[in-house]
C-alpha cells in the first residue's frame, strides 16, 4: 500500500446548544434562515441578519479566531463579490470613477455593500451550523428523521468516502504521466485526460464498493434498522424557530426601512 499522508484534521471545537441539535435539523435551520435572504438584495436585511447571527454564534461559543479559521473562504469571497458589484453593478446616481466598462456610482456602492453583507449573512451560518457535523450523523438524520430513502442517503454517504481515495489517485496519476513521457504537455490538456481516467477509475471503484455493500445485504427488501439512533427534540424546534425569527426580523427591518427590494421586482 502506498503511504497516505493525510493531515489529521484538528478536532472541531464544541458549540453550546447547537451541538444538541440533530444535523438534519441544522440543515433545515440553515435553509429557513438563508432562503428569505436570497429573495431580496438590500443592505438592511443582510446587515440585521448578520448582526443577530454574530451575537448568537458568539453566545454559542464561536470566538473571533474560530470564526476566521473556519470561514476564511467566505470572508475572502464576500468582499470580492462586493468589489465586482462596485465596478460593474448597475450604475445609478453620482459617478465617482470610471474606467472602460468599470463605473463606480452611488448605486453600485450600495449594491456592493448589500452583496458583501449578503454573502456573509448566508455563508457564515451555513458554515458555522455545520462546524461539527459528521457526514455519517447527517446521513442518519436525513434517513431517520426526514425519512429520505436509505438507499439514496447511504449510497451518497459511501460515495463521500471514495473522495479521499480519488485525491490519492489524482496525485499518483499526475506522477505516472510524468513517468510516461507525457508530462510536458500543457496543463489543460493533461488535466482533461486525467479527469477522464479518474472517471473510469471512479466507476470501477464505485462498482466494487457497490458489490461489497450488496454482499452485506444492502438494497434487500428487508426493512432496515439503524445502529445509531437519530432523534429530534426541543432544541431542534428552538433552533428552527430562532432561524425563522432572525429571517423575519431581517425582512421586517428592510420593509420598515423602505429598502426591501425583492429580486423579481
Amino acid at each position, binding site marked *: 500500500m502506498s503511504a*497516505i499522508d493525510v493531515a489529521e484534521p484538528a478536532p472541531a471545537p464544541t458549540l453550546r446548544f447547537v451541538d444538541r441539535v440533530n444535523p438534519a435539523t441544522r440543515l433545515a435551520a440553515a435553509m429557513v434562515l438563508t432562503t428569505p435572504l436570497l429573495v431580496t438584495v438590500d443592505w438592511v436585511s443582510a446587515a440585521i441578519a448578520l448582526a443577530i447571527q454574530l451575537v448568537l454564534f458568539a453566545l454559542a461559543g464561536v470566538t473571533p479566531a474560530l470564526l476566521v479559521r473556519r470561514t476564511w473562504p467566505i470572508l475572502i469571497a464576500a468582499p470580492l463579490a462586493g468589489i465586482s458589484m462596485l465596478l460593474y453593478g448597475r450604475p445609478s446616481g453620482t459617478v465617482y470613477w470610471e474606467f472602460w466598462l468599470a463605473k463606480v456610482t452611488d448605486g453600485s456602492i450600495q449594491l456592493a455593500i448589500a452583496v458583501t453583507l449578503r454573502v456573509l449573512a448566508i455563508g457564515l451560518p451555513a458554515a458555522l451550523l455545520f462546524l461539527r457535523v459528521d457526514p455519517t450523523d447527517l446521513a442518519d438524520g436525513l434517513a431517520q428523521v426526514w425519512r429520505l430513502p436509505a438507499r439514496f442517503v447511504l449510497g451518497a454517504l459511501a460515495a463521500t468516502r471514495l473522495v479521499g481515495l480519488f485525491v490519492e489517485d489524482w496525485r499518483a496519476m499526475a506522477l505516472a504521466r510524468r513517468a510516461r*513521457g507525457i508530462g510536458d504537455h500543457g496543463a489543460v490538456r493533461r488535466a482533461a485526460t486525467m479527469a477522464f481516467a479518474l472517471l473510469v477509475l471512479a466507476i470501477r471503484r464505485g462498482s466494487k464498493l457497490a458489490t*461489497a455493500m450488496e*454482499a452485506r445485504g444492502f438494497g434487500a427488501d428487508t426493512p432496515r434498522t439503524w*445502529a445509531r439512533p437519530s432523534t429530534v427534540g426541543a432544541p431542534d424546534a428552538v433552533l428552527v424557530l430562532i432561524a425563522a425569527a432572525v429571517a423575519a426580523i431581517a425582512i421586517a427591518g428592510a420593509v420598515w426601512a423602505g429598502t426591501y427590494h425583492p429580486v423579481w421586482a
Partner: protein
Amino acid sequence: MDRSPGAAGPARVDATGWGWRHAGRRRAALRGIDLRIHPGERVLLLGPSGSGKSTLLHALAGVLGGDDEGEHHGRLLIDGRPASEARGRAGLVLQDPDSQVVLARVGDDVAFGCENLGIPREEIWDRVRAAIDAVGLDLPLAHPTSRLSGGQKQRMALAGAIAMRPGLLLLDEPTANLDPAGVAEVRDAVARVLDRTGATLVVVEHRVDVWLDLVDRVVVLGADGRLLADGPPSVVLDERREALAAAGVWVPGVPLEVPDATDAAAPDARPALSTESLAIGRPRGAVLHERLGLVVPEASSTVLTGPNGAGKSTLALTLGGLLAPRAGRVIAAPALARGIGDAPLRWRSRELLTRIGTVFQEPEHQFVASTVRDEVAVAPRALGLGAADVDARVDEVLQRLRLDHLAAANPFTLSGGEARRLTVGAVLATRPGAVILDEPTFGQDRLGWVELVRLLHELVREGTTLLSVTHDAAYIASLGAHRIRLDARAAAGTGVATRGGPA
C-alpha cells in the same frame, strides 16, 4: 420464522449443473458445476486466473446480479434455497482492502450489514463488539477507517461479514494485496472466527500455503470453467501438483524455476543512482526520513524492503525523479544521465523516458490509452520516433511480454497478471537505463510471477539497472542482489540498512 438471519448454523451448498455466462461474453465463465459442500466444511477453491473462481464466489454471495448481468444454468442452492435469495446466509470478503470500506468509523462499518438485515439496535452493537473481538481488531468503535492498514481493513471487512452471523463465509483472495504481516493477521483472524462459529468456508487464493492448515478440502476449477479436481488437500495437491503449478497456483514445494540473486549483480558495479543526505516525504506531507545516503548499483538488481508505511514508495518515486527531495540530493551517474545534469527531478518528462522508467503499484494509475497497443506506443511517440520505428518497438515489446493477442483490448479489462506485464512493457518500449518497480508481484499468480521475474533477469543481463520495492520473499531471493531496508520512521540517518550483493 425464516427471518432470523444467522440463527441457523453452518450452511450447506448444492450446485447441480450450474453455469454462468456474463452478458456480452460468448464463452461461459462456468459450466456444468456439480458440487456439494457440507455444513462446516472448509474449502480452498483453486484454478488459473479466468477460471471463474470469483464468479462462483459472487454467485454464492448472491451478488452476481440479475438477468441483465448474465444468464445462468442449473441450480445453485444454499440450505436448499437459491443463493440469490439467501442473502445474509453468506458473508463475502473481497480482495481490494480500499474498495470495501463503507463507512467512516470502524464500529459503524461493522454494523452496516446487521442494519441491512434488520437486526434490532441493541443486538447490533453486541454483535459488532463480538465480531471485532473475534478478528482481533483491538480498536475503539469510533476509530476512523481511513487510518487502518491494509491488514486491518481486511479484518474489519471480515468482522462486518461475521457480524451478520453467516452460515457460509466466502473469501475472495483476501490477502492478495497485503504484506506478509497483513497476510498473517487476516489468516489468524479467519482461523479464530471459524473456531468460534463453525461456519462453512470457501476461500479463493493463489497462495496455497497460507490456507493449507485451515482447509479440509480443495476444489480445483479448470481453465474451461469446469470442475477439475476435488478432494482432501494432501491428495489433490499431490496428484495435481504439476497441473496446478502450470495453471498458476502457488503449490507449496514446487520449485520456482528462476535464476538466483547472484545472477542479478554486475561485478564491481558503479552507482547508477545515489543519494546525499536525502530527506523524503510527499508534498505537503510529513518528512518520512532524513539524511539517507544510499546507492543503487548499475546493471544490477536492488530490492527495497521494509514495513508498510516506512516510505518505500515515496523513496522510489523520489529516486525516479517524480517526487522532489525534501532536502539533500538524488544523483544520477553520468552514464545514466547522459549529459543532461545529474538531478532526475530536473529532467523533462520526455528525457526521463530513456533514462529512468517507473512501474507504479496500481497499473490503473498509469494507463493512458484505450488499447494495449497504444498504451505501449505512448512513450515511443512522446520520444518523437517515426511511425515505423514506433511500430517495430511496440511489436517487439508485445511479443516479448506475450501481449500480442491482446493488442486491441482495453488496458482496463486485462487480468491482474496481464495488466502488470503491460505496465512493464510500456516502460521497456523506450529502453530506459534504469527501471524502478513498486510491488511488481502483488496479486500475481505463479505463472505471471515466474514470467515477470525471468524478464527482469533478462533486463539486468542486458545492462538495465533495477530497483524494486517489494515484500515478496521469493522475489527477494531471486532479485535481491543488493538490498536496502527502510525501517519505519527511525532516528535521523539510521532508518536505512544496505547489504551488498553476494560477491
